[in-house]
């Protein structure tokens, strides 16, 4: 034991002075929370799934080509020829379903515990937006493999969105980028799926988590609450 700090400690101190690491540690990790149960893990599980989707999704875009001529073959290539391509796509595929499931379960736990009430109203509102965006990810991602399932589901989906009188046909045209599902639909869905919606979600998740930490996680309500 020496009182001279080791190199690592010196490095940490140098970084801490500039980045405020110990403050972050104190505020984020070393804080007190009420005793909570396993239902409270659903939010962080959703966060984990979102992170997995982002990572596997980024790898998929290395080979995926968003054009009608090549989309199907490029997905096929990922599955057949890219090493561990099947694993990356498999995780992304199943992760998408689990993400929707877990967002929904997380919402239900917040609802049944009344955790959306004062002072967490905004956390809830942002949560609902995240829920809608998650569904949007599912809808736009479904078309990308450009197979029969994708094509017909999107045909019907965009057609249903266009059922309201007057504005309906206009909505369908915006979603499809024309009268029919085409190369334009694919590139629209692609940019929504890999860039616009995820960026918005990342932003909203950051605010969501900021609010959770700032306000503190709710306690499981007791019978008299």
């Amino acid at each position, binding site marked *: 034991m020496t009182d001279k700090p080791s190199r690592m400690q010196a490095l940490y101190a140098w970084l801490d002075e500039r980045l405020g690491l110990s403050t972050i540690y104190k505020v984020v990790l*070393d804080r007190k929370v009420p005793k909570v149960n396993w239902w409270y893990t659903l939010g962080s599980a959703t966060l984990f799934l979102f992170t997995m989707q982002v990572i596997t999704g980024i790898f998929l875009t290395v080979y995926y080509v968003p054009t009608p001529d090549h989309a199907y073959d490029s997905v096929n290539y990922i599955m057949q020829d890219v090493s561990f391509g099947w694993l990356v796509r498999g995780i992304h595929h199943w992760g998408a379903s689990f993400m929707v499931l877990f967002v929904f379960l997380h919402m239900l736990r917040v609802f049944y*515990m009344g955790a959306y009430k004062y002072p967490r*109203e905004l956390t809830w509102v942002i949560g609902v937006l995240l829920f809608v965006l998650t569904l949007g990810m599912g809808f736009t991602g479904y078309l990308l493999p450009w197979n029969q399932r994708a094509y017909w589901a999107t045909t*019907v989906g965009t057609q249903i969105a266009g059922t309201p009188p007057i504005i309906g046909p206009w909505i369908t045209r915006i979603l499809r980028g024309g009268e029919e599902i085409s190369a334009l639909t694919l590139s629209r869905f692609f940019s929504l799926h890999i860039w616009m919606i995820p960026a918005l979600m990342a932003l909203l998740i950051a605010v969501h988590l900021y609010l959770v930490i700032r306000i503190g996680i709710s306690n499981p309500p007791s019978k008299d609450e």
Partner: protein
Amino acid sequence: MNEELKKKYWERYLRLKHKGVKFYPDVVYKDLVVSFALFLLLVGLAAFVGVKPEPPVDPNDTSYIPRPEWYFLFLFEFLKFIPGELEWVGATVIPGLAILVLLLLPFLDKNPHRHWSKRKVGTGVMTAIVLAMVGLTIRAVVTTPPQEEGPVALSLPEQIALGQELYSIHCAECHGPDGEGGEIQGVEGLEGVVLKPINSQDEMYTRSDQTLYNIIAYGQQDLGMPPFGRAYGGELGPAEIKAIVTFMRYTWDDRVELPAEAQGGGMPTLGPDEVPSYEEHVEPLVKRYCVSCHRPGKKNNNYLMTSYDEVMHSGDHAPVIIPGDPDNSILIQLIQRHELDFSRPMPPTKALPDDVVDIFVRWVAAGAPQTAAEADQIEAQQGGGAAPATPQP
């Protein structure tokens, strides 16, 4: 919520917080356990269940039953209960309102209580909605008929094998089993027409994949070649036509090499003392040389060859196979090029190779067994010769 209630809330919350635990490690530990379990689950699903292969887009295949992701199924099912002219209400207004109510829930819900037992109306309604969603999803899954899908071939050998099979079914009756062409016999409307070979170097060097694709899809109607593309009244989708083109290219074009896995063309081999079975030896031959004419909708004396039962029992002169007695079996007589008063030799255009005829004869002589296990049994009874003893299932 008024100020007094707010103050009461915070007092209580802070008390519980001080009695509580540290976020790290207590809560983080739980979170990590769940995330790690999820990770294992995802890797397991990716490795052992995988992603179901689907055929590529075919806008003309109107028989395809559209199916959304499972989490939208409940909405699909819900729409079935709504009369047509109000569909838009169910499709957009109701879900839109539901999202709006969710969004504004903290402001609409004025009840200060948090425990579910003191919010019976709210939690009751939510429970009913969730149960309805689950119920509708189950109903949708149960009532949607399974999609009938042709085989999906992804790897090159798979595509070549599929192309070979489709070629034998759809093209061999006119172009011959190996694309050799010649005089058409036994095809209504084209009797006696002479086709040039399509497996020649000339054909393969002058026709690109795209041209071949188009010929198959549109046909050459003025010359007698029917269209096969679904968009033009045929029965093949783009994936299937592509497989046929791949098969033609890889088997007939001397500039491309057939991958090792696809060599042998799926044709069975038979040892000198082995007893052939239908499933292992005869079915591939039937598919290659006979099915293109001997399937429903063709001229063939009602003799169909798409399954074991049909091969054994159908036909105007059934049975054409007498197990154990090849000499009196019509089928054997015909492939040995005997002319019968009701039928030409089979196949009409060109004699089968001798080793193929030999497999048919040995199969009928052994009693026309269906499965490999049955063939093994017969082999064992016959004393089996040099054949290795195969364990019985």
